[in-house]
C-alpha cells in the first residue's frame, strides 16, 4: 500500500483497474461516469493498455465479450440507460462464462431520468437485467477506498469464477473525493487455457459460445451455471455490521445511502435508541443468512434505498416474515439526509410508521 492520495471515486476505479492488471477498456461516455472513461483514455496508453471509445454501449459490451474471450482482463463502465443497452451482451457473457468487470454509476430513472445519483438499478443488477437464468456478482461499495478495493476484487472474482462482476455505484460515489491507498497489485490472473488466442500449437480449437442448440445440452449447461452460482453464494457473501449487536431496529442500506444511514444510527444511539446498520457489500450474492440471523435479536428492519423499494425484497426474503420490514426511499436523484432517516427511525421506534 502506497501513501494515500485524494481522488474522485470514478477515477479511483480507473486506477484500481490498472493496478488489477486491466489493460483493456471499452466504453461510451455518459454522466455521471464520464470521469472514469476519461481517466482510462489518459491512463491506458501510459501503461501500454488499450482504450477504445466504442460507438455505443452495445458495441462496448460486445468488445468486452471479444476481449474477455481472448483472455484479457477487461472492463467497461456506464450509467443506467447505458447499462440497460448492455443487457443482451451481459447475458451472452454470463452464458459464455467470460470474466469481465462492468461498472454502473447509477442515476435517477426511469428513462432519461436525471443525472443525479440513484440506486434504482438494484433489481436490474441482481435479478433481471438480461434474459435467462444467470447472475452477475454485484459489489456495492460505499466509499472511494472501497471502490478501489472492490474494483481489484472484481477482477479477481471475475477470473476465479469466469463470471461477469458488476460494480454498482451511484453518481455521488463516483464524484466524491476521499483519500485512498492503492494496493501494489492484484492477484495474478489465472491461466486461461480456454481463451481464443489462436491455436498456437494447441490441437483442439477453443470456442467462446453461449449457444446450445439442443435443449438437453442447454439444460446441462444451466445446471453447471447454477452449481457455480451456488458455490459463489457459499463463498462470496460480503457485508458489514455497525452497532447491530443489541439493535432493536436494523437499518439495511448499501453504497452512499449506507453512509447516510450510519450517521443516522449515530444520531439515534446518541438519544439512546438501539439502532444498527447492516450493510451488504455484495448485493448478489445477498447475505440472506447473515441478515436473517439478526431477526433473532432485532424487533424490526428497515431498508433505506435511493429507489422506490428494490433491495427491500431481499430484506424480506432474509427475514422471512418473522419481523416487520419497513422501507424508506428517495428517488429521482434525491439523497436522504441523516436527520431525515433519524426522523423515520424515531417514528418507527415509537410505533407510528406503517409497515
Amino acid at each position: 500500500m502506497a501513501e494515500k492520495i485524494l481522488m474522485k471515486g470514478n477515477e479511483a476505479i480507473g486506477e484500481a483497474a490498472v493496478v488489477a492488471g486491466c489493460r483493456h477498456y471499452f466504453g461510451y461516455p455518459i454522466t455521471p461516469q464520464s470521469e472514469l472513461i476519461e481517466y482510462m483514455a489518459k491512463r491506458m496508453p501510459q501503461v501500454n493498455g488499450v482504450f477504445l471509445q466504442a460507438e455505443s454501449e452495445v458495441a462496448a459490451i460486445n468488445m468486452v465479450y471479444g476481449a474477455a474471450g481472448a483472455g484479457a482482463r477487461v472492463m467497461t463502465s456506464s450509467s443506467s440507460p447505458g447499462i440497460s443497452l448492455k443487457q443482451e451482451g451481459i447475458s451472452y457473457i454470463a452464458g459464455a462464462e467470460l470474466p469481465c468487470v462492468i461498472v454502473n454509476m447509477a442515476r435517477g430513472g426511469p428513462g432519461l431520468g436525471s443525472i443525479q445519483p440513484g440506486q434504482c438499478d438494484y433489481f436490474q443488477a441482481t435479478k433481471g437485467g438480461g434474459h435467462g437464468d444467470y447472475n452477475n456478482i454485484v459489489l456495492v461499495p460505499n466509499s472511494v477506498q472501497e471502490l478501489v478495493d472492490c474494483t481489484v476484487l472484481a477482477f479477481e472474482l471475475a477470473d476465479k469464477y469466469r463470471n461477469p462482476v458488476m460494480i454498482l455505484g451511484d453518481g455521488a460515489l463516483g464524484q466524491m473525493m476521499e483519500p485512498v491507498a492503492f494496493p501494489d497489485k492484484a492477484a495474478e490472473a489465472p491461466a486461461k487455457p480456454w481463451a481464443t488466442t489462436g491455436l498456437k500449437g494447441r490441437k483442439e480449437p477453443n470456442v467462446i459460445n453461449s449457444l446450445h442448440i439442443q435443449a438437453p445440452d442447454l439444460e446441462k449447461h444451466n445446471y453447471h451455471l447454477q452449481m457455480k452460482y451456488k458455490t459463489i453464494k457459499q463463498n462470496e457473501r460480503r457485508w458489514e455490521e455497525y452497532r447491530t449487536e443489541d439493535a432493536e431496529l436494523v437499518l439495511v442500506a448499501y453504497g452512499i445511502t449506507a453512509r447516510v444511514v450510519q450517521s443516522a444510527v449515530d444520531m439515534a444511539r446518541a438519544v439512546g435508541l438501539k439502532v444498527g446498520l447492516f450493510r451488504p457489500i455484495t448485493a448478489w450474492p445477498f447475505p440472506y443468512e447473515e441478515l436473517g440471523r439478526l431477526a433473532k435479536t432485532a424487533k424490526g428492519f428497515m431498508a433505506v434505498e435511493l429507489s422506490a423499494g428494490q433491495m427491500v425484497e431481499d430484506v424480506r426474503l432474509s427475514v422471512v416474515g418473522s419481523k416487520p420490514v419497513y422501507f424508506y426511499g428517495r428517488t429521482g436523484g434525491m439523497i436522504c439526509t441523516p436527520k431525515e432517516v433519524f426522523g423515520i427511525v424515531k417514528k418507527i421506534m415509537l410505533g407510528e410508521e406503517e409497515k
Partner: protein
Amino acid sequence: MTHEIVMAGFGGQGVMLMGQLMTYAGMLENKHVSWIPSYGPEMRGGTANCSVIISDEPVGAPIVSEPTTVVAMNLPSLDKFEAALQAGGNLIINSSLIERSSKRSDVNVLLVPSNDIANELGNAKVANMVVLGTIIAATKAVSQESVLKAFAKMFAKKPELLAINEQAIKRGAALVNGK
C-alpha cells in the same frame, strides 16, 4: 471535532478547488475527509457548490445538509445556504460581489472583499484563495501550512503559482487573525 463546510458560488469562481485544497490539507493532517460536488444538470452558467467534511472520526454522509461553515461567493449562494447553517457556525460572505450581510444573528459572519483583495494583489484569479485563507483561519479545521503543502502537491507542475496564492491565503487569514 467535525467540520462540515458548504462552499458555493458561480461556476468559474474556483469554489471546487477551494474545497479540494482544504480536503487535501485535511488528509495531509491524517484527518478523515471527504469532498463532494453538487453536480446539477449539465447546464452552463449555473451555481456550483461542494460539501467538505474534515473530522477526527470516519465520515458518514458526505453531503452536508447542516453545515458548520457556509461560504457564499455570490448572492444566490448566500440566499440558498444561509438558513441551513448551524447556530454558532461561520458564515463567510464574499463582500466584493454580495451587497447584503447576513440576516442571522446567531452565527459568526465574516465579510471578505475577496475580489478587491485579489485585484490589490494584482491577480484577479486568486479571490478564492483569499476566501480560503479566511475559512481556515475562522474554522481552524486545517493549518495554513497543510493547505500550502496541498497546493504545492496539486500544482506540482506549476511551482511558480505558489507565491501569489500563499499571499492571497495570508491576506484572507489576516481578516480573522488580525481582528
